[in-house]
């Protein structure tokens, strides 16, 4: 009892074990020795568990470090100022959005005409987006505008597009601002009755100037999104349309076909509830006739719109999705060579063109190795 080691000695020994354990040379014999050391005293076990719990978690700092270049230790204070925190600090702790799925009429009760919209909106917990807005505007101002083609068609309006990895801001004559994401294309046609945007490809974020006399309508696939003065994004995927609203309110309508009577302003009855009031904080996915509407904290939506600042934000995102995101922004394409990797959860904040950084991090943080194929693809497989 007299020669009992002090806490400090025990902690130092435990720390040394933890360091040794991360050595690639760590062997079975070492493990046995560690087990014996742990067995020798409960004090050893306490110190080991306590130090290990934080030391292992320290790895998570990697996710913030991705914003800094390798081999360079960020100056003191820089990490907390990184976009990772400035963008995400507004996020609410409460991540339990109310979700409602609206489906086609055959398996869902029909909302009666005139019934209040079924979309529920949580009014509480809507933190300020000031920090995001500032970060966004600074970054936007410095963002490299890649290519904007502006072609004047007779009566077809102006067409704007970005190439892969591009990001550009398109001001329109009414004061609205459209931000185009990578590999996207829009056509703008303003008439006396309507401000009409056709999303041909990709994704765009709209900040609509208020003008009740002229609805601002975004056509995407077989849908149109009608806004008066609001902020929202529309993304056109091969078989789905994704709408996210961060301010104001939009209405979702089926695009009138040429056979329809001119300008049907009433949405089809069976979707009235879901389509009528997409208010701020709503995310809607439309695939075929099925619409699913979800409420999300606005900062979270803003986060998915982080592309406007040139960032991809991954938040426990499955690797398969993360890769799909990166592939939108880069001509060098990632693929998964090992299906077991698809569900790996990735967290972090990356410049969308920092493909190498992302791959390096995967290799360092997970059991992943990357190999380049002849045709310029990067294949991720298990180590």
């Amino acid at each position: 009892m007299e020669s009992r080691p002090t806490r400090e000695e025990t902690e130092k020994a435990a720390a040394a074990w933890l360091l040794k354990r991360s050595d690639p040379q760590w062997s079975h014999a070492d493990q046995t020795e560690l087990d014996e050391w742990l067995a020798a005293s409960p004090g050893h076990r306490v110190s080991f568990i306590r130090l290990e719990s934080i030391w292992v978690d320290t790895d998570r700092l990697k996710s913030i470090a991705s914003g800094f270049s390798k081999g360079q230790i960020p100056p003191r204070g820089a990490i907390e100022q990184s976009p990772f925190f400035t963008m995400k600090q507004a996020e609410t702790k409460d991540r339990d959005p109310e979700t409602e799925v609206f489906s086609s009429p055959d398996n869902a009760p029909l909302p009666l005409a005139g019934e209040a919209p079924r979309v529920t909106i949580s009014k509480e917990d809507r933190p300020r987006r000031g920090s995001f807005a500032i970060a966004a505007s600074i970054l936007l101002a410095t963002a490299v505008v890649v290519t904007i083609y502006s072609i004047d068609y007779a009566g077809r309006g102006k067409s704007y597009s970005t190439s892969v990895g591009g990001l550009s801001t398109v001001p329109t004559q009414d004061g609205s601002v459209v931000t185009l994401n990578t590999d996207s294309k829009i056509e703008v046609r303003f008439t006396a009755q309507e401000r009409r945007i056709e999303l041909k490809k990709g994704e765009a974020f709209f900040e609509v100037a208020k003008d009740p006399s002229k609805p601002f309508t975004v056509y995407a696939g077989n849908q149109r999104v009608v806004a008066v003065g609001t902020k929202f994004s529309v993304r056109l995927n091969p078989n789905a349309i994704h709408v996210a609203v961060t301010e104001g309110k939009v209405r979702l309508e089926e695009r009138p076909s040429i056979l329809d009577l001119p300008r049907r302003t009433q949405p089809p009855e069976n979707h009235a509830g879901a389509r009528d009031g997409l208010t701020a904080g709503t995310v809607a996915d439309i695939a075929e006739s099925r619409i699913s509407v979800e409420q999300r904290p606005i900062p979270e939506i803003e986060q998915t719109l982080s592309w406007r600042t040139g960032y991809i934000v991954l938040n426990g995102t499955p690797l398969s999705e993360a890769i799909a995101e990166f592939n939108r922004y880069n001509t060098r394409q990632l693929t998964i060579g090992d299906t077991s990797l698809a569900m790996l959860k990735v967290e972090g904040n990356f410049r969308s063109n920092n493909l190498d950084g992302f791959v390096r991090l995967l290799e360092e943080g997970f059991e992943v190795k990357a190999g380049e194929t002849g045709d310029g693809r990067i294949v991720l497989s298990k180590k």
Partner: protein
Amino acid sequence: MTGANIYVRSPYSPHPCYRHPDGCNVRTMDAEFKSWFVREILAHETALTRFLKRSWLSSNDVADLCHDVYIKVLEASERQRPVSPKAFLFATARNLLVDRMRRNQVVPIDLLQDMESSNVLVDEISAERAAGGLQYLLRLTKAFEKLPDRCREVVWMRKIENIPQKQIAQRLGIAEATVEAHLVRGMRTLTQLCYGGDHDEEIKARSDGVTHETKHGK
């Protein structure tokens, strides 16, 4: 009563078993037990520290006592996990404290009276951990930013950039033992800061100690 446990390796389990003096074999140090201990016991460190501080103890003594409380709780939990871990933790702390005071023959009456009313038991760290993220990451970052310069640099290289100790030593032109000393210090300081025990004085004293120590290497 605290005789050394007998170490038995079960052929069926990768984790060691301990035979307790009272005869039963318990398996411990597996991931499940560890995370239970972290979540249910260590998470209360801020509150526990505050509680122990109300006695006459110095910061360093508080940290020692905290450690001893953990030992008692760990040993008991290895045998059988307490139904209400937090209450058990504080009961153990109280008993140990009374014990010490008796031995020292100094018993501040008000302390004894006050002991039951330690009801301001915040354990933010577990809430943050459970919330999955950002707040906890911020806590880690803040702790990291409090490390002394060299220590911070070495921890960054080892943990974030995954550079082996040997290479860090080469790059910085210092002995590998020094790198290790920095990492040991970094690990202990980060742990102390993250669990929120405000042993600032201790950390200061400790970093002075390390600077001195590393001059000699290992």
